[in-house]
């Protein structure tokens, strides 16, 4: 049987070469379809990865721990101690953690007043958050004890203030009373997305604790953000943290940003559906050409039947030819797709559509992402399409009677 299959394989290969001109166009059509879809899907995958990164880096991390009730009523009265209440297992696959005080506040300049989130941070911990992507004019925060402010460029424009000027922050203290204090602006940050520039104000964590903390806690914070090595570790890590910290609320980014989570889920299905749609359109052309190929060789195929080749072997031969064409076309298409993705380099600048991009949780730069899993998926799906397409010419070939070889 192996010898017969080898014979059929050789015969199929030679038939593919025999009709090289027609098959070249077939290969080209398949390659362009697969290559184009690979590129478009890599952009979709890039969008998904970007959304996920934006969701994770936007202060929430993969997992965020807060005191019960803080989400509904964010105040320092619902703080917890980073020193005594939090124990992080060494076994957790953690890329980094950030302890913060994150409270609603009012910022006022001489001319304008705005509601913002005042965030006390240790700058050294924020390499895991959007803080790392800020382009800062002036000075960054020197450390957790730095009592100056870092505000967004958009906010600075709204407040009509600038680096070195003083602004007033009003924040509710641990006793429920408002604290009002003047701060000097150390620097102004420019963010890839607009909302942090408008809504976030940073200062040193320790400095803010010193200003607000009268709750009797050691190292009080309102949130602890955990970024894991991989999002795949999230469910188990969240479960573990919940077990270890029953006194805290442990939420992952999917719970905190369910809309983004849903979009991320839909993207996976979208990629497969998009690929199938494109390949289905291609299949019509493919089936038509392959059937024409079989019809063109009616006498030859009839002769094979006349000589004693049974239907199964004839079926295998036709399927081998169709699949052979698909294999070459798909491999060329995947290579083309990879080249196109690399050709796109750093990605597509969407800054002209920054507001729309933000609405979809995207940054203003769309970078294609191509994974080995996606390439294997596209390759596998293409081969399934090829097998499906080969069914029709194979069925037509089986209808060819050996008499046709005699009568022509």
């Amino acid at each position, binding site marked *: 049987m192996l010898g017969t299959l080898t014979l059929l394989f050789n015969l199929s290969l030679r038939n593919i070469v025999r009709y090289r001109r027609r098959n070249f166009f077939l290969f080209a059509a398949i390659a362009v379809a697969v290559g184009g879809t690979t590129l478009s899907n890599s952009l979709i995958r890039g969008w998904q990865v970007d959304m996920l990164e934006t969701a994770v880096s936007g202060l929430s991390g993969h997992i965020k721990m807060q005191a019960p009730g803080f989400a509904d009523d964010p105040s320092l009265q619902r703080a917890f101690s980073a020193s005594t209440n939090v124990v992080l297992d060494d076994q957790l696959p953690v890329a980094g953690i950030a302890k913060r005080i994150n409270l609603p506040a009012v910022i006022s300049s001489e001319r304008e007043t705005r509601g913002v989130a005042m965030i006390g941070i240790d700058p050294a911990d924020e390499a895991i958050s959007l803080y790392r992507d800020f382009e800062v004019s002036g000075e960054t925060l020197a450390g957790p004890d730095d009592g100056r402010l870092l505000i967004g460029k958009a906010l600075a424009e709204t407040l009509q203030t600038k680096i070195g000027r003083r602004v007033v922050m009003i924040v509710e203290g641990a006793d429920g009373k408002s604290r009002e204090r003047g701060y000097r602006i150390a620097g102004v940050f420019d963010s890839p997305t607009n909302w942090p520039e408008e809504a976030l104000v940073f200062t040193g964590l320790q400095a803010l604790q010193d200003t607000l903390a009268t709750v009797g806690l050691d190292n009080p914070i309102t949130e602890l953000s955990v970024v894991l090595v991989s999002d795949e570790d999230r469910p188990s890590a969240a479960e573990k943290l919940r077990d270890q910290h029953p006194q805290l609320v442990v939420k992952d980014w999917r719970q905190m940003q369910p809309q983004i989570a849903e979009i991320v889920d839909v993207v996976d299905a979208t990629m497969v559906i998009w690929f199938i749609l494109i390949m289905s359109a291609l299949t019509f052309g493919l089936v038509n050409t392959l059937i024409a190929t079989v019809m063109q060789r009616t006498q030859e195929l009839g*002769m094979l039947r006349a000589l004693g080749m049974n239907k199964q072997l004839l079926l295998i031969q036709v399927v081998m030819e169709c699949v052979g064409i698909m294999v070459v076309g798909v491999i060329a298409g995947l290579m083309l797709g990879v080249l196109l993705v690399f050709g796109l380099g750093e990605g597509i600048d969407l800054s002209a559509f920054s507001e729309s991009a933000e609405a979809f949780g995207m940054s203003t730069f769309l970078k294609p992402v191509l994974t080995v899993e996606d390439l294997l998926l596209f390759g596998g799906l293409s081969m399934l399409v090829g097998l499906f397409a080969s069914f029709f010419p194979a069925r037509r070939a089986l209808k060819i009677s050996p008499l046709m070889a005699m009568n022509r």
Partner: protein
Amino acid sequence: MSDNTASDTPVVYCQDVQRIYQQESVPVYALRGANLTITAGEFVSLAGPSGSGKSTLLNVIGGLDGFDAGEVTVGGTSLGALNASELAQMRLEKVGFVFQAYNLIPVLSARENVEFILQLQGVSSQERQERANSALQSLGLGDLGDRRPGELSGGQQQRVAIARAIVTEPVLLLADEPTANLDSKTTSELLEVLQQLNQQQGMTIVTATHDPIVMSYTSRQVAMMDGEIHQDSAMAS
């Protein structure tokens, strides 16, 4: 097949064979109760005008076409009870075909064309090569084994087709108008080849033709008319 004389063993036995085609629900009788017995070592021509049923009878004997009534036996196998797959196997094992249009596989060399059918039979690689070379050699094609059909003349292609038909040592060689596409010189050469196969190797050959030259090379002439055996030289003698 070394016996060069005809024996009484029936290689082909046709009894009251009918073949009816439906043309727009009108029955057309291609064979009307044909009776024919061919014994081993005979070289038979089936002759007759177009529509006489000679090609239909040849196809029925070769298991390429079915029949609606009667009995057909080839090499001891009754064809009436065989399904398509069994008929294919019967053709592979017992019948060699030579077609009017040569019908070689264009992407294979002459040697590969001859080997092809042996490969379908599951013959080992070494034996395949030996038998294919021997068959080509016997037909004067020893030097042309590596050429593809497109690089051979019509006569050479038909010789390759004969080599392919005889390499399996079939009990019966069927040739449908084998010389129709050849010039008179090549026709004579080819007929001599067939005659040698018949006389020297005892190969049983049946050929459908309307060419008197072909009939002159055969040992038995069967004339057909309107789907029936009209005249049979064996009966006449």
